């Protein structure tokens, strides 16, 4: 029996159309739009000005405060302006807009393409390198990596978990990295283990990626302490708490962090980025993006420079099909629908999915038949139908008592509901109201 997390979960159609498509390098765009906030925490502060010449890999905005990350130029060229531009959430946000000229890299970056498995830096130096190179979590949460590598005083971490689950349907970027950059990724894992001071690294992969499991198993013996663990396919296994539970049977208590149970989770893409940052001195300036959809002409996995407009990425895959109704940035379960292809690829963009008009329709809401399915699929053991009703009625005290803040917004409840009720929509509202009330209480 394959391991998995025990509580809740759903199994949406996998639709991993691009699982067998090798990563392709996307040609440079004419212009990049690099937002200054691509991570959780304070936006970075620009250190270049209009008209400046920049090289590929050069810092263009520096991290502000502890929870923040450096931003680098992903191309060489001239800064056109620093101005507000629309981002994937639909908000305008300060971005550095650069017109691309040539592709001149900083010469500190190792571009020989040689595999470097020997780790010479100390733990502290590794953390510093990650911070300098603007590494953030690439699974979508974009939490600055150097912070996750700093175990808070008094806490002890004994296992590093690498998330190769990729439980979102459609997305295959992590899958391809594991197959094509397996050794680099495993070296990155070793680096992360060294920084955290742990001797155990577990890679969790869902069993729908047998080729990745086989490949990593065949090379993992060369990397001390790393083991590969096939997992039963079940969404949301990629959720930190779910993955920790599946692999180690430890349950992160409500309101606590993984490190409280001695675990730290990083994504496959992050491990690869850490390899590049630490071994090659290469900042986070490009990432693998899955471009997919049932009607798209040439779906694929592309290596894209940060700041490239999504339009260029979609064009390279054959352009937007005629009947497109919705474009989603990220996975179909947790990604955001965008209203324009002018938004740029950022550090957290794992994929872009084009849905047809039919696929993007939302069905009319029906009365709750009290089937309890939302309760049985919630991986956190919440009662979505109740949270929705309580939020509708604005009973926020009870919403809080029913643990709305534990919700990871995985969408399993809305996915399963036979009455097509907008459960998560209301729960999000309940969460943001409750969050506001908790903050107000703290201020008093």
């Amino acid at each position, binding site marked *: 029996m394959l391991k998995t997390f025990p509580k809740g979960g759903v199994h949406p159609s996998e639709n991993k159309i691009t699982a067998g498509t090798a990563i392709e390098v996307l040609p440079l765009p004419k212009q990049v739009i690099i937002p200054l906030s691509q991570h959780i925490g304070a936006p970075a502060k620009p250190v270049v000005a209009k008209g400046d010449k920049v090289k590929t890999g050069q810092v263009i905005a520096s991290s502000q405060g502890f929870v923040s990350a450096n931003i680098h130029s992903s191309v060489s060229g001239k800064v056109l302006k620093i101005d507000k531009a629309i981002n994937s959430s639909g908000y305008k946000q300060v971005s550095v807009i650069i017109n691309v000229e040539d592709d001149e890299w900083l010469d500190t970056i190792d571009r020989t393409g040689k595999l470097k498995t020997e780790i010479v830096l100390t733990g502290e130096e590794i953390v510093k390198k990650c911070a300098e190179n603007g590494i953030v979590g690439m699974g979508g949460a974009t939490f600055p990596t150097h912070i996750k590598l700093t175990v808070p005083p008094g806490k002890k971490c004994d296992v590093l978990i690498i998330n190769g689950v990729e439980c979102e349907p459609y997305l295959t970027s992590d899958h391809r990295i594991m197959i094509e950059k397996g050794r680099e990724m495993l070296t990155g894992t070793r680096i992360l283990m060294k920084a955290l001071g742990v001797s155990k690294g577990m890679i969790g992969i869902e069993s729908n990626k047998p080729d990745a499991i086989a490949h990593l198993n065949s090379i993992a013996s060369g990397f001390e302490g790393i083991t590969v663990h096939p997992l039963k396919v079940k969404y949301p296994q990629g959720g930190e708490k779910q993955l920790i539970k599946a692999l180690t049977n430890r349950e992160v208590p409500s309101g606590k962090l993984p490190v409280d149970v001695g675990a730290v989770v990083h994504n496959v893409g992050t491990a690869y980025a850490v390899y590049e940052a630490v071994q090659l001195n290469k900042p986070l300036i490009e990432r693998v993006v899955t471009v997919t959809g049932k009607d798209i002409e040439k779906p694929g996995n592309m290596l894209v420079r940060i700041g490239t407009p999504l339009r260029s990425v979609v064009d390279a895959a054959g352009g937007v099909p005629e009947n497109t109704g919705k474009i989603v940035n990220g996975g179909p379960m947790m990604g955001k629908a*965008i209203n324009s292809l002018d938004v740029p690829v950022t550090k957290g963009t794992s994929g872009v999915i084009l849905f047809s008009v039919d*696929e993007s329709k939302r069905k009319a809401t029906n009365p709750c*038949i009290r089937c*309890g399915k939302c309760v049985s699929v*919630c991986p956190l*053991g919440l009662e979505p139908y109740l949270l929705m009703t309580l939020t509708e009625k604005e009973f926020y005290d009870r919403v809080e008592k029913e643990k709305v803040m534990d919700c990871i917004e995985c969408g399993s409840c809305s996915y399963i509901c*036979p*009455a097509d009720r907008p459960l998560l929509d209301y729960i999000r509202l309940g969460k943001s109201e409750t969050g506001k009330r908790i903050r107000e209480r703290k201020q008093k």
Partner: protein
Amino acid sequence: MNELLKVSPSPHVYSRESSPRLMYGVVIALMPAQLAMIWFFGWAAIIVTAISVTSTVIFEYLIQKFLFKQTPSIKDGSAIVTGLLLAFCLPVNLPAGLIILGALVAIGIGKLTFGGLGNNPFNPALVGRVFLFLSFPVQMTTWPVPNGFKTSFTDATTGATPLSILNENYDKIPIDQLMTDQTFNMPGYRDIFWGNMGGSAGEIAAFALIAGLAYLLIRKIISWHIPASILVTVLLFTGILWLANPGNNADPLYHLMTGGLLLGAIFMATDYVTSPMSAKGMVIYGIGIGVLTVLIRRFGAYPEGIQFAILIMNAVTPLINIYIKPSRFGEEVKHV
């Protein structure tokens, strides 16, 4: 891309499940029992079902349209399920007028007065059935002997159910004698498994109901919690009684396959609307039904208890939903 793009919050994909699909799934699961019913009772079975289902659907339509001025929701299939379940727990020789009355009570009082699907506290079919049972006890307890298409449902060849024979004779005649004495004509295990005994239309064929249960579980229309907890509770409870006093109690297997237990545990107690939401709650609800059923069967005035047991636990369901929370993730610290 001529049209405007849609933007909506995640998730962007949905399961294929819908309320009507679930309801029609239940209808399919009831079909083996329906066929068994026709096998045993012939035309009578077809007529009872036809009258019951037509009445529930028509009443739902009329009441919603003309009384409440709502858009009728008969397409969701829940009225059909109610109609079928009602037919299943009636004797097949019940006069048509009573069936129609039962359907009116089931839909009108049992379901729509509370606001329709999703809001009714009691299982509508059971409300109809219990109403008829209390108002017309004689007609509701006159069961024809199954005889296929030759079943006569006008003359008085009615057979008592095994449970009613047991109920009348507990503590009077030892079980062994009841079972072997030809005058009582108690059905053997083979008969109760295949359904060859007196009883309501759809509740007698154990194997057909179990086939329906398998379908419900495979299609994930229901989870195992409710039927399993009811059946296990009944087995344990009757088992204890039987072991304590084998001379005066029917054995657990006999209890399991006679009367409306299987129909109730598989199809009535599992009604979404009137059963608890969480797995823990479902188990408590199931145990409650099991215990009450045995108490009524063995010590109460009625030979059969499952219907009352379900209605009582229906009433407790809101409390269960409030006080029995699913076990939350990360509730207790488990650090290995």
